[in-house]
């Protein structure tokens, strides 16, 4: 029996943290303890240290606080521009909240798989210094010259010696509730947060370590050092980015009626996310916490703590509708028999492809019930009964589910107030950081030189956070733009392997359970070992982890490997990482090959262990066959013309130009109209702060005309485009004249337009029926006569068969215009007909509540399959009043509303010049005419064509705040090549064998990138032969396939290599 009377703890002489908690009777008390030391103690220590004068000083350009996806993106953007970055994180790893998620909506991409390459890239970046387990204490100075005091807590483990082998955690006797798994599992007092953690160094949890020394005894590299002390670090930087993220609301005090913390089977959505995750407590199997049985039915309750004026937070958490939909559809897809219900108030599927994702979930059989449950109770079998009113049928009902998931609110970090105080920036009434000006400068904090990124200023989804982080990177560069830049990474000299016999190393990845659970990795390794030229074959948990990359480098040295194969996932996401590893080991990066045994094998053959194993063996064997013949390739270097072209002079385009100018980069704005301002020229005011549109654009236009780095070309259109990243030449048509311009990168900011309603809702037949834009122009020009009854119909031409998407801004615009009318004509009655009220996020939701409460706008929800009908006056169809028949979903009855003003919130589509630009820039566009980004989550501003970027509504309709954040983000992205001054092209390019070429020109026509032209033969000038521009060539291989005489070879994929691969794949013997 442990002693409870054990006296108060004392720190050991050697600084070993001794804690008495372990001697408590109840292990619960150990796990209840906070995991971070209290701040007072660190402050005390700081003072002591300051007295002794011990201080480490780092000089850098930018400090980033918080290394979640936003912080990482900002760090990479700044580091790529050549400036030194220090990034700190409170926890012992980087990655933040994103790595806790299983998959991301709406593409169902594996979250860790998209975040991990960024984490590794960050840790390997030559310009980025990473300090984990650290926090900011104070900040002094002014923009350009900040002195920041950082307290780095000791991990009691030597980062240089720790190999991340897990031996210490195995022997550690202390079990602590694991905050990374949202308290669903336990970890030891010496731990890493998750298997792919960066840096992969174990940390001793000071609060919970009992100082028994077990870890020290088993640690082979002798990495444990109880003597290591926490230290104060002084960082001198020019600007600061705050990206400390958010916390998730735990409904234990508020919203107790949902039984969280009382009933075992009520969990939060983030906990469910951990259950789904392959490296979560159940390794991806969804079990009920009470009995570890598979649930037959699951319920989700939305808005727990969100949209609440009492017992919660007044704002909308912005992501819950979509993550619940994602979690529900993943559960449903894995087990179609499972019964899933989501209880909601409004489904906010507002973003690009969100509505389609939601429709898909409904098709899968996920039930959506409009009604917020009042309470839940537990049954003897531990199932949960939910009591709710289905507000669409009007029935009070009860539903029993095996497991209940609460979609809890995103709330500001507890530490925000303290951090705000330390940094001298303001925090709003909720605890989020305040923007300097919401509508014109959303990234700027209340103190100059300090910028905000991600969820710290309100809930955000990943792409919005990433865009904003890029934007913060652009702004943070401005005060330090003239400092010295450090471009590129120094690699050791490349070893010449052309005369060596192939010595191949094969590294096979488990990818957590993604591969190892569906096929026999050990057998694959054994079979691979038998192949000739294979010097080494090993299988590891995550080959992409930092620790594994280190091991690859060691293997290259020790075993003298000269070619490397990684059998894991796709080279598209992970190839670059391993190529870097090769270069660090002194090998040419093209001596690398990936065998995709996850996407091409384990994922698609998850039901057949033996066949999947065999296929994986075949895939690896064929890769080995090719790898034997891999050659070192060289890359073409080319310079970048230091100017950016911005197509579109709306708010996004203007903001991008200003951000570029702040970084000292020249730009040209092309505007097809006669003046700058874009859509805002026709709008009255902007939500959610009711700022006049002209008050937003006029100062911007003034700044632009003043700025010498920005050239404005109005009445202009891009007619022709020639060249490639860094070296573009364009022909601009301005007032009938053609002008030639030169530039290095392109930002597309062409905006959107309202769709053609084609007579729907009698649009165009009566002068009292108008679109929101027409209404705003009238309001702006004071051209509206006082209406008696106003009806606004949302979602006109949206979310139907023809256009299945949501326009994202319509709800906000309709609310704002309803308010404008109500303000101007207090006697008018305003009806707002909507399908789901999608006023998402902070500020918008509060704006909506305010309009309802204070302007008494009557909202009527109508069903999507029973749209309102508009009929014209028989006597006076053109000018008379109209009648709107609508089915009220809530009361389940038809209503007839008279209207002398009918406003339609018309759906949107891509701008008018999209089609022309699409062909000129060679970029993809979706069915609605919006440009398609490289990656919906982590590369929202880039096109797959390098050197071309997008922002604002050209990507998807956006409110002003998001558009500005994106514009500044796109500026940051477009500035990277310009800041680097030089770039390297692909090594994998086409190569013409001149003697075989007949000069027929077939390849020239096949090339989609205009990279081939016909030139005279080098020895026989009378003959024409094809020549490849190595900077333009993307290595697509079209020319090689088209050539009638096999005169073009694709480097890295030549005919011999491919033929060998195919025969090895089909025939075991051929592979030997």
């Amino acid at each position: 029996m442990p002693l409870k009377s054990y006296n108060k703890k004392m720190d050991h002489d050697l600084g070993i943290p001794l804690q008495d908690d372990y001697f408590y009777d109840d292990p619960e008390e150990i796990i209840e303890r906070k995991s971070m030391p209290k701040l007072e103690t660190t402050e005390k220590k700081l003072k002591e240290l300051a007295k002794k004068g011990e201080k480490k000083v780092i000089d850098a350009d930018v400090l980033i606080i918080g290394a979640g996806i936003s912080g990482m993106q900002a760090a990479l953007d700044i580091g790529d521009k050549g400036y030194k970055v220090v990034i700190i994180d409170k926890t012992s790893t980087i990655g933040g909240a994103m790595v806790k998620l299983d998959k991301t909506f709406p593409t169902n991409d594996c979250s860790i798989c998209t975040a991990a390459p960024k984490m590794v890239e960050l840790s390997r970046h030559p310009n980025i210094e990473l300090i984990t387990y650290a926090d900011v204490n104070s900040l002094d100075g002014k923009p350009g010259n900040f002195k920041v005091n950082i307290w780095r807590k000791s991990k009691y483990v030597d980062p240089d010696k720790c190999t991340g082998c897990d031996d210490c955690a195995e022997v550690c006797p202390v079990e602590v509730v694991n905050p990374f798994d949202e308290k669903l599992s336990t970890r030891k007092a010496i731990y890493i947060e998750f298997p792919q953690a960066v840096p992969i160094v174990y940390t001793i949890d000071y609060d919970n370590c009992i100082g028994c020394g077990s870890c020290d005894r088993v640690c082979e590299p002798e990495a444990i050092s109880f003597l290591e002390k926490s230290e104060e670090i002084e960082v001198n930087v020019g600007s600061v980015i705050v990206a400390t993220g958010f916390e998730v609301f735990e409904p234990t005090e508020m919203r107790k009626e949902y039984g969280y913390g009382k009933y075992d089977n009520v969990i939060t959505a983030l906990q469910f996310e951990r259950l789904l995750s392959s490296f979560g407590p159940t390794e991806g199997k969804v079990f009920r916490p009470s009995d570890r049985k598979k649930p037959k039915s699951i319920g989700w309750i939305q808005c727990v703590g969100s949209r609440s004026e009492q017992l919660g937070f007044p704002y909308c958490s912005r992501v819950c509708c979509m993550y619940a939909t994602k979690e529900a559809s993943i559960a449903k897809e894995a087990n179609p028999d499972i019964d899933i219900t989501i209880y909601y108030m409004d489904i906010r599927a507002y973003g690009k492809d969100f509505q389609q994702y939601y429709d898909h979930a409904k098709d899968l059989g996920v039930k959506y019930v409009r009604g917020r449950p009042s309470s839940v109770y537990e049954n003897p079998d531990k199932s949960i009964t939910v009591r709710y009113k289905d507000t669409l049928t009007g029935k009070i009902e009860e539903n029993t589910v095996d497991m209940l998931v609460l979609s809890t609110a995103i709330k500001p970090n507890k530490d925000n107030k303290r951090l705000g105080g330390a940094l001298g920036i303001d925090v709003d009434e909720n605890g989020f950081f305040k923007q300097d000006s919401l509508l014109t400068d959303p990234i700027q904090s209340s103190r100059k030189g300090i910028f905000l990124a991600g969820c710290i200023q309100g809930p955000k989804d990943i792409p919005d956070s990433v865009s904003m982080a890029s934007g913060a990177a652009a702004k943070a560069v401005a005060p330090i733009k003239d400092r010295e830049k450090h471009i590129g990474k120094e690699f050791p000299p490349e070893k010449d392997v052309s005369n060596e016999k192939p010595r191949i190393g094969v590294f096979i990845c488990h990818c957590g359970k993604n591969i190892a659970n569906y096929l026999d990795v050990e057998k694959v390794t054994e079979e691979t070992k038998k192949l000739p030229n294979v010097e080494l074959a090993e299988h590891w948990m995550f080959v992409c982890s930092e620790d594994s990359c280190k091991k690859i480098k060691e293997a290259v040295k020790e075993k003298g490997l000269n070619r490397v194969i990684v059998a894991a996932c796709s080279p598209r996401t992970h190839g670059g990482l391993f190529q870097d590893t090769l270069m660090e080991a002194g090998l040419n990066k093209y001596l690398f090959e990936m065998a995709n045994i996850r996407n091409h094998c384990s994922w698609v053959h998850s039901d057949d262990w033996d066949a999947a194993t065999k296929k994986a063996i075949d895939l690896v064997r064929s890769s080995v066959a090719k790898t034997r013949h891999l050659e070192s390739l060289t890359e073409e270097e080319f310079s970048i013309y230091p100017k950016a072209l911005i197509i579109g002079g709306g708010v996004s385009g203007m903001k991008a130009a200003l951000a570029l100018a702040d970084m000292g980069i020249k730009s040209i704005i092309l505007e097809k109209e006669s003046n700058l301002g874009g859509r805002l020229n026709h709008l009255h005011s902007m939500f959610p702060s009711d700022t006049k549109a002209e008050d937003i654009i006029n100062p911007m236009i003034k700044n632009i005309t003043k700025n010498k780095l920005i050239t404005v070309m109005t009445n202009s259109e891009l007619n022709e485009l020639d060249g490639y990243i860094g070296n573009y030449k364009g022909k601009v048509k301005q007032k009938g004249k053609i002008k030639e311009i030169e530039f290095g990168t392109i930002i597309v900011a062409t905006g959107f337009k309202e769709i053609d309603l084609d007579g729907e809702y009698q649009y165009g037949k009566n002068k009292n029926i108008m679109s929101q834009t027409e209404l705003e122009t009238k309001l702006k020009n004071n051209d509206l006569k006082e209406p008696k009854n106003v009806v606004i119909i949302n979602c006109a031409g949206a979310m139907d068969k023809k256009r299945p998407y949501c326009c994202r801004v319509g709800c906000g615009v309709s609310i704002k215009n309803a308010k404008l009318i109500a303000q101007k004509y207090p006697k008018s009655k305003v009806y707002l007909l909507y399908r789901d009220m999608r006023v998402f996020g902070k500020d918008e939701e509060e704006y909506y509540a305010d309009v309802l409460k204070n302007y008494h706008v009557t909202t009527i929800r109508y069903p999507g399959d029973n749209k309102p009908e508009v009929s014209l006056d028989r006597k006076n169809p053109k000018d008379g009043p109209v009648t709107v028949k609508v089915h009220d979903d809530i009361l389940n009855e038809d209503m007839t509303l008279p209207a002398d003003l009918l406003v339609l919130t018309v759906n949107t589509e891509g701008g008018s010049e999209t089609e022309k630009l699409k062909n000129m820039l060679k970029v993809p566009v979706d069915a609605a005419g919006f440009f398609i980004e490289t990656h919906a989550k982590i590369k929202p501003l880039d096109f797959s064509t390098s050197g071309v970027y997008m922002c604002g509504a050209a990507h998807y309709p956006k409110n002003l705040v998001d558009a500005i954040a994106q514009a500044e983000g796109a500026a940051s992205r477009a500035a990277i090549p310009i800041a680097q001054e030089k770039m390297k092209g692909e090594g994998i390019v086409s190569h013409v064998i001149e003697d075989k070429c007949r000069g027929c020109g077939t390849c020239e026509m096949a090339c989609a990138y205009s990279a081939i032209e016909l030139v005279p033969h080098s020895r026989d000038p009378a003959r024409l032969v094809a020549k490849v521009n190595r900077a333009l060539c993307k290595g697509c291989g079209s020319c090689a396939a088209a050539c009638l005489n096999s005169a073009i070879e694709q480097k890295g994929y030549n005919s011999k290599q491919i033929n060998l691969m195919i025969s090895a794949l089909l025939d075991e013997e051929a592979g030997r």
Partner: protein
Amino acid sequence: MSKVKEKIVNEYSLNLKKGDLAKEVEELSGVNLFGCYQCGTCSAGCPYVEEMDLTPDEVIRYIILDRKEVLNSKTIWLCSSCFTCAERCPRDINITKIMEALRQIILRKNIDKTKLTMLTKEEKEVIPQLAFVCLFRKNVG
């Protein structure tokens, strides 16, 4: 297509002008009910909801739409003022106070007033004491 079937009082005799119902309710209860999202939390938690002709959220909807027949609904008299709805409402709308306000609108018009002297001796013997208390408290308002 009203769900209120009974006609206890003639709501038109109450001298409520167009749009006045919500104003009157707000004045009596001090509650701004226009912020309602019609989420149904109040109705799902109401212990008497099975007996009601209008669920509590429908009562609010009727007031917002200025449908005076809400004054004839059974709901306002069935409400036992348990405050469950007010406690859980995410919009911080005190529905219990709204119910009381609706009752007050009728009571203040002195319709259906009972005097002790009007009851017969037999009735007095049968009616429980509690009912008397309720009856007269109603008149006190």
